[in-house]
């Protein structure tokens, strides 16, 4: 009899193909949206954490400008100088390396190819602190740094764009008015959490950058590497004390610079991913709701027809419970079909999205169950309760239902 009931339900599903399709569609949309969104959201969060860990927990950044909203305000305050960089490295015992970073965006040209890219003035300390490896070529000679020679080390993206498949080392590229010989190519680090390309840059000695590109001697960031095992808080305090002294900030006055550790950077980044995840979840919740309302509508619109159908079944000798079980099975079968398609589609979209954003694929079984449960519940409740009401009527009442 159960098998018979299932067969009946499947027949009914095909007989009311449009209604069934719309119900399934509602469930598919709800389930797929939630799974895809949450999968991508969780992948992003995990990626941020991983990225920050990869940067190393022993890194500090010194930036000019007072701290506000978790980040420095920018350039209104006095910039840093190369002497600040050297002071941080030499005068603070726990600092192993301090590297200068001066940065702008400009077009790099080789032959007929060109690309807007990050132009960074720095020295070998940055390559070491940020753990860059060489794919080809070499780091700068001390003399080249000293003299500010126009010799560049480029990232993989810029190489691919300008040189295609060719070897860039020994070639000369032009950045603004500066002709710059390429002496090294760094190994690719790939895309970061938000899809930002980490290999799209040209590095040159900071003196070359200051003279030929920027026209000033400002350092925009000091990239600090602290000795393994040393207290980051101590290092931060020491740098703050040193910098206040060097920038002649009187006691009681606020800092006009900011020392950020990875925790702060992580907080800032995960603040962004939290917003992202929140947005995605909101969209997902709306989709779930829309799907649910769709299912509800279809079920309610068909109540009259279903009530009459139930009247007919009762009139030819069906018992109320038989009719109910049939409608329940029908609702469950539809929910299962919709749910499975939705899960498949959601995981598929989640995988695509994760790949596209270059974040790990992290489906969450709890969320999958929840989305499926919600849609199935809507399908079953709105399929079942009108049926129950109808099955409790006497057959004549049900047949007369308008």
């Amino acid at each position: 009899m159960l098998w018979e009931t299932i067969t009946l339900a499947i027949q009914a599903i095909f007989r009311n193909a449009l209604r069934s399709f719309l119900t399934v569609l509602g469930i598919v949309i709800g389930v797929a949206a939630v799974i895809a969104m949450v999968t991508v959201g969780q992948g992003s969060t995990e990626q941020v954490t991983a990225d920050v860990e990869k940067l190393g927990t022993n890194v500090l950044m010194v930036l000019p400008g007072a701290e506000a909203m978790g980040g420095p305000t920018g350039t209104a305050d006095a910039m840093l100088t190369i002497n600040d960089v050297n002071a941080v490295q030499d005068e603070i015992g726990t600092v192993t390396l301090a590297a200068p970073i001066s940065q702008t965006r400009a077009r790099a040209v080789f032959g007929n190819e060109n690309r807007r890219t990050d132009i960074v003035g720095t020295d070998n300390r940055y390559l070491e602190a940020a753990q860059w490896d060489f794919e080809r070529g070499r780091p700068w000679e001390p003399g080249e740094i000293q003299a500010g020679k126009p010799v560049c080390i480029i990232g993989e993206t810029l190489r691919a764009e300008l040189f295609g498949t060719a070897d860039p080392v020994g070639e000369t590229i032009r950045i603004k008015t500066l002709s710059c010989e390429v002496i090294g190519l760094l190994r690719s680090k790939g895309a970061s959490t938000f899809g930002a390309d980490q290999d799209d840059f040209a590095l040159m000695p900071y003196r070359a950058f200051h003279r030929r590109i920027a026209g000033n001697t400002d350092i925009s960031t000091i990239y600090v590497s602290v000795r393994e095992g040393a207290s980051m808080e101590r290092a931060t305090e020491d740098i703050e004390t040193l910098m206040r002294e060097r920038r002649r900030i009187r006691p009681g006055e606020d800092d006009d610079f900011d020392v950020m550790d990875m925790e702060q950077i992580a907080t800032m980044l995960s603040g962004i991913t939290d917003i992202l995840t929140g947005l995605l979840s909101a969209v997902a919740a709306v989709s779930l709701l829309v799907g649910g309302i769709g299912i509800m509508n279809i079920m309610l619109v068909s109540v009259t027809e279903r009530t009459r159908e139930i009247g007919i079944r009762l009139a030819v000798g069906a018992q109320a419970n038989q009719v109910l079980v049939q409608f329940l099975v029908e609702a469950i079968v539809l929910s299962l079909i919709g749910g499975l398609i939705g899960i498949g589609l959601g995981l598929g979209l989640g995988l695509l999205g994760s790949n596209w954003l270059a974040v790990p694929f992290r489906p969450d079984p709890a969320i999958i169950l929840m989305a499926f449960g919600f849609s199935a519940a809507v399908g079953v409740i709105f399929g079942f309760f009108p049926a129950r009401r109808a099955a409790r009527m006497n057959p004549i009442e049900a047949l007369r239902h308008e």
Partner: protein
Amino acid sequence: MAEMPLIKLRGISRIYGQGEAMVRALDGVNMTVHAGEFIAIMGPSGSGKSTAMNVIGCLDAPTDGHYLYNGVEVAKLTSDQRALLRRHYLGFVFQGYNLLARTSALQNVELPLIYKGLPRGQRRDMAAEALKKVGLGDRLHHDPSELSGGQQQRVAIARALAGNPQVVLADEPTGNLDTKRSVEIMEVLRDLNRDDGLTIIMVTHEEDMAQFADRLVWMVDGRIERDGPTKRPEPSVGVLEEK
């Protein structure tokens, strides 16, 4: 010993509503039906004919009185037991056909057989058989929307008799049909009564259709006013067509 009547109504009343709005749709109906009878129920609109049919057909329960079906007190049965009675002994034909939409004639006729628990193959055969009997052997796979009114009503009749019931109850089976189709339907019913011994109770507004029955019950205001054999000899199709 006299043969036990198939249906016996004693003081049956059916009251709708309460207080001011109270309607006595049936008011102390007494009626006895023996197996093999063909009965027409007539009467003015609102006289309780449909209500009586619904009570007899176990689709509705009387407010008061005794209803014995084959000696069993129906009023004491639960709604599930009444469903079993409908399933095994009663077939209903409605004025409005009441077929399942988007469902073939064959599947519509199969419906009562499903609840009888018959295997699919046997269901198919019996349903096809019933459809042949009402002259729709060539319309098995048509949906109601692809059938004329008369054909739909014949599907409904096939559905009512597919499970070999003891009684077929037809409430204005020709109410929506023209004279020619009506006569066709009546002939189907008459043949079922004559050849298969099926008991038929039918409500009609048309004197000519009532003439197909052997016995006429006249209702007024929820009571039976007259009950006896139909008067005129049965008219032939030719007579009707001359009109």
